[in-house]
Every structure is written in C-alpha cells, then in structure tokens.
C-alpha cells in the first residue's frame, strides 16, 4: 500500500514538474534571465526614409538642392529638428515651417533637445532600402531577403519575443500605425509557427479605427455587462469553438491573446476615444497632420495601458518621392510631434515619467542623387531610396539610465557601424530578455544592444 502511494505521489510530482512550466503566464516556459533597465520603451519608427544630410548632418538645402542648382540662396545649412537635435536653425530660405510658404518654424517644445539629454548614433547602417523591409527589420532585429510585401514578417518581432520569453501581457505591447497601406497593419506579429499572433501586440491604426470607418462600424458598440452578458456569451462561444475543433482538422487561427479583462479595458478605451473625439479632446500635438494625430493616439494608449513597449510608425517624410518641400515640412512636423510626446510622457503620465527609454530611428535613408521630379512650390528636386546613401540613418536614444553622448558613431559608415536592426535587441535588453533574443538565432549576426555600445 505504501509503495503504491509512493508511486502515485511520485507520478503526480513528475507530471506536475513537466506541466508547470507550460502553465506560466503567456505560455512562456521560464522566467527571463535579464533584469529590466527601464520598465517602458517607446520606439519611434521615424519612417518614410530620411536622408542623414537633412537630419543629423544639418545640411538643409546645401547638399540636396544647391549641389544640383548652384544658386547662392540655396546654399543654406541648419537644423530643422530642434526638439531632437542640437544646432542652429537655417538662417534663410525657410520653407520647412508653417504659415505662408512654410516660412515660420514651429517653436520647439523641449527646452533641451533630446540629443543633449541622451545618445545620438550619427551613422547607423540601415540594412534594407524599402519601407516595409526597413521597418520590420527594426522590429525583428534582422532582415529577410525573401520577405514579400503584404505578408506577415517571417521571423518573430520584438513583441513576440517579449510576450513569449518575458511573460508580458498583450496590453503591455502596442503598435500604433499611421496607415493601412505599405503592409503597416502586418507589423504587430510575425507568421512564425513558434511565435505568431498569440504572442502579438495590440494595434490601432487610429486614422481608421477612430476615423470615419470607425465612426460607422465601431463607435456605437453596445457595452454589455461583463458578468451577466459577456461572460455567458464567451462561455457559449468557447463551447461552439470546442465543438468545431473536435469535428475538424482545420488549424484554428490564433488571435492576440488578450484576456477577457484586457478586452474589456480595450473596448472601454475605444468608447472613451470616440467620446473624446466628439468633444475634440483627444491628445494631439498642436501642429501637424496624420503623423501628429498618430502620435496623439499613441499617447492616449500610453496613458491608459502604460505599455512596456509602444512602437509608433510615422511616415510623412515619404512625400519626398515627389515633393522635397513637403519632405522638409514633414521632418520638422514629426520632430515637433516627438518633442510633444516626450514632454507629455514626462509631465502627464506619472507612471512613465523618468521610467521610460525613447528610441527613434528611420526605416531607411534616401538617395544621394535626386530623381527628375521638381516640386511645384520651390522647384526642389525629389529623392527616392535605393542607392548606398539609403543605408545611412541615425538612432537617437534617451531616458532612464541613458547618459549623454551627443556624438556617438560619427565618421563614415563602416562595417563596424551600428545597425538599425540593433533597435530590436536594444528594446529586448531594456526589458530584460536580451539573452533569450540572442539565443533564439533569429537576429542579424552583428545585432547588438546599443546600450552595450555606450
């Protein structure tokens, strides 16, 4: 009898030991090995392709227009990103601002530019020349040459790494996109069979979710009682799902694994956003178009959910394919939006103030030589993105535990320059899963946390 009991207990203990790791939150097997450097990260894909010449090199019109049209009035240099970078603004030919002909620069929001608070890696190697490849390289920590457009990333994104290996909840990870085009709605998780949707991030494309489409199909959603109505509804749905799964060999698609409580919080948040939209009180930087609106909704998300990671995609500067004047204005307006965001986090979101690290990096650069298109307003030449200059981008980082090194990674781009794919492992390092990401085998062989390069 005793022997029998012993065998029974031993079997149960072994079974428990085998099962226990699988029942930890979010499906992760083991606790993350690293410690957090900061509990929150905001990664801004300062996207749309930015030339270093107009950003960190502060060359304004001198190497974009004057080179091709040696009119003295175009030989102007200066900084058009006063919130992010230190440096004097252009002294003449101001067209990047607001008002008539864009001749009024937007007043800086930050009294000290982020470059003077944190670290600027001036020469960073963008390893993909396109927007989708470049953007998901920031999220995956790698690039995949076989990655087509309009398909999910092939290898896991930072969101999935965090949720699978770090045990973060779905509402701890957010992607806020600016458009339904350019595969943007596919950024929140990969198609990798070991990761995928169930470890994906929550996402809004605010221009649609809270735009006209949302007004028509989401705004008037009935709020059901969580216990009396929704709970039985879910119970019946799960019964139907189990019934279907027992009858079919079909692979049921995973969804982002929000718990019922998280779903309720998101639905309430959406309801509030529609009310705030109607009242005109949604957070929004004072100037700017769609990028500013996207940043404003991202701040609403941060205020509500205090995510561990928030990734924001903006891409106004991509107008540079045909409108260089518009490109300059979009860079300047995005700088304003990001300055507003950083200030808002520090002053209006107490849980994130002084507890957040900010990273901004473009998806790719742009060409050295212009295409034949002249814009209507100033006859400025436009630039695409496909040559070696497209590899030149920057990365700016500031916030908790980040010292001030305003001129890091200067000099010409080389094989030892940081990669823009370093963004993913840097986020992982900050949030405590650096080793798990390195062990995964999915990162670019030279990808390294930027914090290790300080």
């Amino acid at each position, binding site marked *: 009898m005793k022997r029998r009991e012993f065998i029974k207990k031993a079997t149960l203990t072994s079974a428990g030991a085998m099962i226990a790791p699988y029942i930890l939150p979010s499906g992760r097997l083991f606790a993350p090995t690293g410690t957090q450097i900061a509990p929150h990260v905001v990664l801004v894909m300062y996207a749309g392709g930015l030339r270093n010449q107009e950003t960190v090199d502060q060359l304004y019109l001198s190497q974009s227009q004057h080179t091709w049209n040696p009119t003295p009035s175009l030989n102007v240099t200066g900084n058009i990103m006063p919130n992010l970078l230190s440096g004097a603004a252009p002294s003449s030919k101001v067209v990047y601002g607001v008002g008539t002909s864009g001749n009024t620069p937007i007043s800086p929001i930050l009294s000290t530019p982020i470059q003077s608070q944190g670290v600027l890696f001036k020469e960073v190697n963008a390893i993909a020349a396109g927007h989708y490849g470049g953007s998901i390289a920031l999220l995956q920590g790698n690039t995949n040459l076989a990655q087509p457009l309009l398909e999910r990333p092939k290898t896991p994104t930072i969101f999935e790494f965090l949720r699978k290996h770090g045990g973060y909840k779905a509402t701890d990870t957010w992607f806020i996109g600016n458009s339904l085009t350019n595969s943007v709605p596919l950024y929140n998780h990969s198609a990798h069979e070991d990761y995928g949707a169930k470890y994906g991030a929550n996402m809004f494309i605010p221009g649609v979710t809270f735009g006209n*489409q949302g007004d028509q199909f989401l705004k008037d959603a009935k709020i059901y009682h969580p216990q009396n109505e929704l709970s039985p509804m879910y119970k019946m749905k799960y019964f139907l799902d189990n019934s279907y*799964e027992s009858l079919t060999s079909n692979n049921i698609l995973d969804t982002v694994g929000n718990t019922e409580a998280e779903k309720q919080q998101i639905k309430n948040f959406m309801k509030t956003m529609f009310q705030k939209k109607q009242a005109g009180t949604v957070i929004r930087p004072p100037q700017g178009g769609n990028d500013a609106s996207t940043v404003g909704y991202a701040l609403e998300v941060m205020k509500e959910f205090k995510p561990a990671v928030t990734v924001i995609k903006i891409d106004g500067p991509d107008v540079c394919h045909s409108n260089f004047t518009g490109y300059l204005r979009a860079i300047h307006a995005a700088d304003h939006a990001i300055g507003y965001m950083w200030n808002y986090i520090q002053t209006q979101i107490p849980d994130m103030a002084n507890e957040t690290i900010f990273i901004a990096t473009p998806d790719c650069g742009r060409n050295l030589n212009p295409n034949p298109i002249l814009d209507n307003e100033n006859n400025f030449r436009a630039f695409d993105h496909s040559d070696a200059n497209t590899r030149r981008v920057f990365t700016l980082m500031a916030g908790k535990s980040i010292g001030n090194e305003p001129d890091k990674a200067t000099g010409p781009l080389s094989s030892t320059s940081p990669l823009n794919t370093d963004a993913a492992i840097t986020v992982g390092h900050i949030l405590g899963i650096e080793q798990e990401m390195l062990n995964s085998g999915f990162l670019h062989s030279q990808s390294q946390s930027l914090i290790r390069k300080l």
Partner: protein
Amino acid sequence: MKKIHTYLVLFSLCLVSFQCKKENLEDMVFEINEVKLYPSASSKLKEKTESQWIAVVYTNLFQQALSAGDIYKAGQCITSIGDKELAREVIISNFMNSTSPLPAIPTDTDMRADIDKFINDTYERFLIRRPTEGEKQYFRNEINNNPTRSAEIIYFSFALSNEYLFY
C-alpha cells in the same frame, strides 16, 4: 358536319396535351422521407476574408445585404485593430445596437416558446448545419437553466464563433 369535325380535332388536341405532361422527379414516390442536406462542420476548411465575414454577419443579423462600399469600410476597421477577435466583437456589438435597421432577432418569448426550433434555426442561420444532439442539449440547458439568457447573446456567440469564420 364541319362543326363536329372541328370539335373532334380540339378534343384530340386536349387529350394529347394531357398525355404529354412532363413527369417531374418530385412526383415520383420512393416511400422515403424527404431530407434537406446540410454541410458538416468538418468540411469547413476555408477561412472567410474580413469582407466575406462582414457581408455574411450583416446578412445573418439584419436579413438584408450591406453595400459593397460599407463592406470594404467595415473590413478596414478589422484590419486596423491588432486583436481581430476583439475587432469582430466590437463590430457585432455595433450591429446589435443599430436602430435603423434593427437586427432581426427573435424575442425571448418566441425563443422560449419553442426552444428546439430556436436552436435548429440558429444553427442553420449562422453555421448552415443542424446541431448534433449534444449541441442541442447544451443550448437547451443554457436557455432552460438561465432565465435571463437572451436570444441576442446566443446570436452574439454564434457570430463570434470560430466555425463562423470558415466555410
């Protein structure tokens, strides 16, 4: 004599027309009950696109079609939200709250007047199949044991089910 001849011709034509009546298959009696066939759940392997799901759920709830432009816009709403299941849930809730048109949902009195009929009709309406005996019993218990269980909530669970995502 000529008149009699005409009547005879007409009469024979009538006889011929009756004799030539086409025999329909339905007229034949095989002495078995007529059975309506439904696909089984196991044959639903193709995932509906977002637009297809929108079109079908709207038709099922309102018994009328949604315009192509609106189907496109509603599909964009799903695309714009990371948790697709949550997006579908919010869209269904939005439809349930519609005042014009009103969703075509049986009253709770009608549902409870003939529970088996309600269950069969709901399976046919949403899942295009008959419930198994086990499924029928589950919903009978749900309705009988919970006086506040409404037809609306039951419809909601069907519209949000995984099976409803496939065809």
